[in-house]
């Protein structure tokens, strides 16, 4: 139990730092930086916990992003900053970058070395995983404006 807790804390801390770097890259205003880190850390920890409980990664990403999206609503109203400023930076650690690159390099190797079933399988698996995780993340973030605040602006 304590091992799991330790793993989650480690996960949250490193995901938080990762999100911090990207929020600087996106020039997120100073008053929103801490929120970025905290939201990213908790969302990533939630996803890791779900993965630990054998939830498939797409669903885990979707649930984590949904919770993140809903949690940013009260924050965004309080500080009057549009939600995407924080949500996108916070979601960056969960973006399936490695899978995307693997799908692309696989595609190039497929062309270069000729067709093989294993290579095709790798390309398809990585590509589909990339697409589904991305869709899970964005749908999750869109839940609050699409379902709760239908035609009203949040901020």
């Amino acid at each position, binding site marked *: 139990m304590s091992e799991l807790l330790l793993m989650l804390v480690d996960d949250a801390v*490193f995901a938080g730092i990762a999100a911090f770097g990207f929020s600087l890259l996106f020039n997120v205003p100073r008053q929103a930086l801490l929120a970025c880190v905290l939201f990213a850390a908790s969302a990533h920890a939630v996803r890791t916990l779900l993965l630990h409980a054998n939830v498939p990664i797409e669903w885990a990403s979707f649930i984590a992003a949904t919770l993140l999206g809903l949690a940013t609503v009260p924050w965004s109203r309080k500080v009057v900053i549009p939600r995407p*400023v924080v949500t996108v930076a916070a979601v960056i650690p969960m973006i399936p970058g490695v899978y995307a690159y693997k799908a692309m390099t696989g595609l190039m190797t497929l062309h270069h070395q000729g067709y093989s079933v294993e290579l095709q399988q790798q390309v398809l698996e990585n590509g589909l995983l990339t697409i589904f995780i991305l869709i899970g993340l964005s749908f999750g973030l869109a839940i609050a404006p699409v379902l709760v605040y239908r035609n009203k602006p949040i901020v």
Partner: protein
Amino acid sequence: MSPKCNDNMTNSERCTSQHSTNKHGLSHKIISHEEQAAITRVIAHTGQLLQAYNAESRLIEQTTERLGMAFGLDSVEIALTSKAFILTSRSNDHCVTTTRTMKAHGIDMGIVCEVQRICILAEKQIYDVEQVKQRLDNLAVPKYNSVIVACFVALSCACFSHLFGGDSVVFIATWLTSFISMRVRQWLILLHHNLLTVFFITAFTATFIGSFASAFDWGNKPELIMVTSVLQLVPGFPLINAVSDMVKGHVTIGMARWMTATLLTLASTLGIVLAVQLAQLGGWL
């Protein structure tokens, strides 16, 4: 006459006019043609800024609409494409339409926040058209120091290597690799290179430096250095924006953004593949 009573209005029109009448209780003042043109120019500038700095389409739509309502227009409608946007403002059945081309400026959430803040101040009737125009013209949003940004982006990549199970040697090597390639990226952007070129060269640099670590077998998983130092190039922002645009009905611009993100990934992958082949390490998979 209130536009609220008109049954033929579309949902969004009804929604926006309710928004204006309920929230601000605006009486319908008469806006002259010149005034309407001036207001439209200011709103178009707002939309242009938001689009150029990669705001989500829904945000662009809402902000321009709210600004128009705040200035007493009947409605503001926009059509977004990947390279330009068309905006029509309507006041007393008189329309002004304008098109603005969009020059991509990269991602800057500071500007998006600032524009949104100006819009809200205008909505609360604190700013008038002239003040909004001046604020937008003299928009000065501080940027973070580029060395600090490079340090922390490199730290992000190093954190990814830790999350994928790398040890401290891998962590430090990833940080260094990433830092150097990030500085290269910033330098190329400063020289106003095409984004695809920037991604290609940056990915090449990162992978090439990272491949030395693999060759010398540093740390527990040396291949992680190569893999994670290019993660700074993952176009997460366009990808997330693309899907959320499509979810909220902006399918064409969503597709355009998805394609942009795919091209950027392709450019980085080409850089990776070239570096790997030069380093003669065989496949990256």
